[in-house]
């Protein structure tokens, strides 16, 4: 089925052109006890039409990073430094009104637990209409809007009759699809999907991921996936970033990072996933717990749990440095990290 209909246009994309450039983003949460260093010097770039993934444990800062891009952080969050450039324009310098114009229209977001993204007292169709009214004021009359919404529903595989129903009349998976439909409503250049498949059963998970991949390819959109589930992310992304304790510790093409992780944390993370096909080996889980971001460890934030840590790691923080084409690691001892025999089966 083709999606190139009016108002849902495919884009001509140049995979080398950067769409969203995040540069040295630093963000703190201010609480009574002090500053929580939630996002520390995060740098990465999403290109046009690219699917990028961010993985990490709960509390590593991936969701905070995503919210920071849209400036949707809670009131006690403070941007300390850095830039977020969308097509060259720094979003952090815009006024709130200007930012509001770009929300959803340029960058849309599908939240964790999207089931609760729906306001229970309004119809689903009307809630989608809201975005159209806000961003395309005066350009679409009611009937055009309705047709557009119906097309969106069809695109994500929802029956058109459901447009005028209330959210509680949808099943969980259907609500998820509807959220994706709403995200596509303004044909954004980038969709941020935060844990898009958590709380869904495996079969629906698979369906949703395929949908997203297809839509992304056909419409020429970029997607930023956020998840703690590496297996899911590995399947659908072109580039992969690993976050730990607010820092981006490894970044590169998914196939490379997944098959040959260079950062100890990424390595241990991938090793802790059981493999059905590989040789039997004892699971080696990560010891210890993520650090307290109110007082993060000195030097490299991972050093207390790192089996490869040396004296330098305690004292000096490693920069995110490139080790081969597009593959960056933040580790002094990345060469010590052994091979991980895992084939990425797509």
């Amino acid at each position, binding site marked *: 089925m083709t999606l190139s209909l009016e108002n849902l246009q495919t884009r001509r994309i140049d995979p080398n052109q950067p769409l969203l450039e995040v540069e040295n983003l630093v963000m703190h949460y201010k609480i009574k006890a002090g500053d929580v260093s939630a996002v520390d010097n995060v740098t990465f770039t999403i290109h046009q039409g690219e699917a990028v993934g961010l993985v990490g444990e709960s509390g590593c800062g991936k969701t905070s990073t995503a919210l920071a891009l849209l400036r949707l952080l809670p009131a006690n969050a403070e941007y300390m430094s850095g830039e977020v450039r969308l097509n060259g324009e720094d979003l952090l310098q815009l006024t709130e009104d200007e930012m509001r114009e770009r*929300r*959803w229209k340029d960058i*849309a977001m599908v939240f964790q637990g999207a089931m609760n*993204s729906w306001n229970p007292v309004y119809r689903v169709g009307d809630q989608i209409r809201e975005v159209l009214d806000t961003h395309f004021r005066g350009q679409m009359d009611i009937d055009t809007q309705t047709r557009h919404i119906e097309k969106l529903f069809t695109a994500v595989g929802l029956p058109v009759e459901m447009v005028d129903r209330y959210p509680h009349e949808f099943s969980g998976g259907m609500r998820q699809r509807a959220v994706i439909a709403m995200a596509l409503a303004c044909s954004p250049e980038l969709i941020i999907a935060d844990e898009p498949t958590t709380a869904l059963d495996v079969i629906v998970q698979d369906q949703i991921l395929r949908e997203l991949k297809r839509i992304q390819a056909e419409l020429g959109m970029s997607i930023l996936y956020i998840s703690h589930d590496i297996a899911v992310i590995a399947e659908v992304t072109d580039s992969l970033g690993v976050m730990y304790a607010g820092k981006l510790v490894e970044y590169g093409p998914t196939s490379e990072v997944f098959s040959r992780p260079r950062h100890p944390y990424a390595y241990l993370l991938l090793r802790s996933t059981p493999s059905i096909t590989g040789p039997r080996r004892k699971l080696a889980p990560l010891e210890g717990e993520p650090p307290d971001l109110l007082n993060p460890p000195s030097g490299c934030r991972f050093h207390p749990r790192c089996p490869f840590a040396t004296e330098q790691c305690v004292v000096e923080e490693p920069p995110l440095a490139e080790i081969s084409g597009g593959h960056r690691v933040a580790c002094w001892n990345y060469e010590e990290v052994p091979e991980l025999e895992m084939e990425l089966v797509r």
Partner: protein
Amino acid sequence: MLRFLTRRLIQMFILFIIFLSIVWLLLQLMPGDITDTLIGDPNIPLSTRLELAERLGLDQPVWRQYTTYITNFFQGELGVSFSRYPQDVWNILWEAIPRTLVLVLSATLLAYWMGFKSGKLIAWGRGGKTEQGFITGGIFLQTVFYPWFAIVMLWVFGFFFGWFPIGRFISVNLWQGSGLDATSVFQQLILSTFLALVVYLGARHLIKRTSSKLIVQQRLQRAAAGLVFLALVAYWYSSSARTYVADIVWHTILPVATLGLVLFGAVMLITRTSMLETLGEDYILTARAKGLPNRVVRDRHAARNALLPVVTSFVLALGTVIGGAIITEEIFSWPGMGQLFLQGIVVSDIPLVAGALAITGVLTLFAHLIVDILYTVLDPRIRIS
């Protein structure tokens, strides 16, 4: 919907019978023989007393009195007042009911409207000194000793500033010799206001249908409200009874404001709590992510959902509202059901007291029903499909 309504009505009916029975039972326990009160002179022969007792139905066995009372009630027969013999209880209450209703409804509507608006704004704001001030003020209004508060209000605005009359319903001197009956003028006033309200609601609905832009809608609705209000005022201004109508309105303002203020405090606090809970929901974050303006997020998404617990809370607040109405009528000498109730208690006028309580019960149950219906309208999740 129809099945829901019939089921509720039956429930209400049963509840009401139980309520009425309890009321009747309690009143039977009140000491004192009414015949003593009516016939103060012990020299009057016993036969006359017995005759009177028979007239009042007091010679029947208790259970017979009970069933008679219940059946009579549904025929609109509430018995004869002991203290205002031979006036019919229903006749006495008939005048008082609309006065109490106006007092209670005006105060409640005002309190909920302003209270919800304030609570919503406070919860949305970033906190700080203003919020603390409002919260303290709200708590103060909610916990202040109401009789004392009403007395102070009456003294300050009636006595000290002299802006409003010292209680009562009308300035008796003004009306003497005018040939007009206060009750009928009052009824006309209520009727005209009600009609105006219906016209306004109709206009609102039409406006919603015809225009598509939200802003245009709002402006037209406000214009409609203004027009209707002006029409109403003009109508009464041009009528010959205008000074008398103004007199009644003038007397109504202070008691309504006093009762309203106290309710306002409570509603504001409940709204604030409800808004705070709602603001933590995921769909609010989604609304912000959609790029919706702040006011839309606050009103269309947050406040609309925060409204539900506030509406439910009204049912619980009814008891307080009724108590407040009784006190207000006592202090402002407002001739409504509350005043009649208190007077009846003091002289052990059982039929009158029973009648007042029974009517209150009916109205309370209707209020419950309206709230239930309102809730189904507001929350699609519980609509009967």
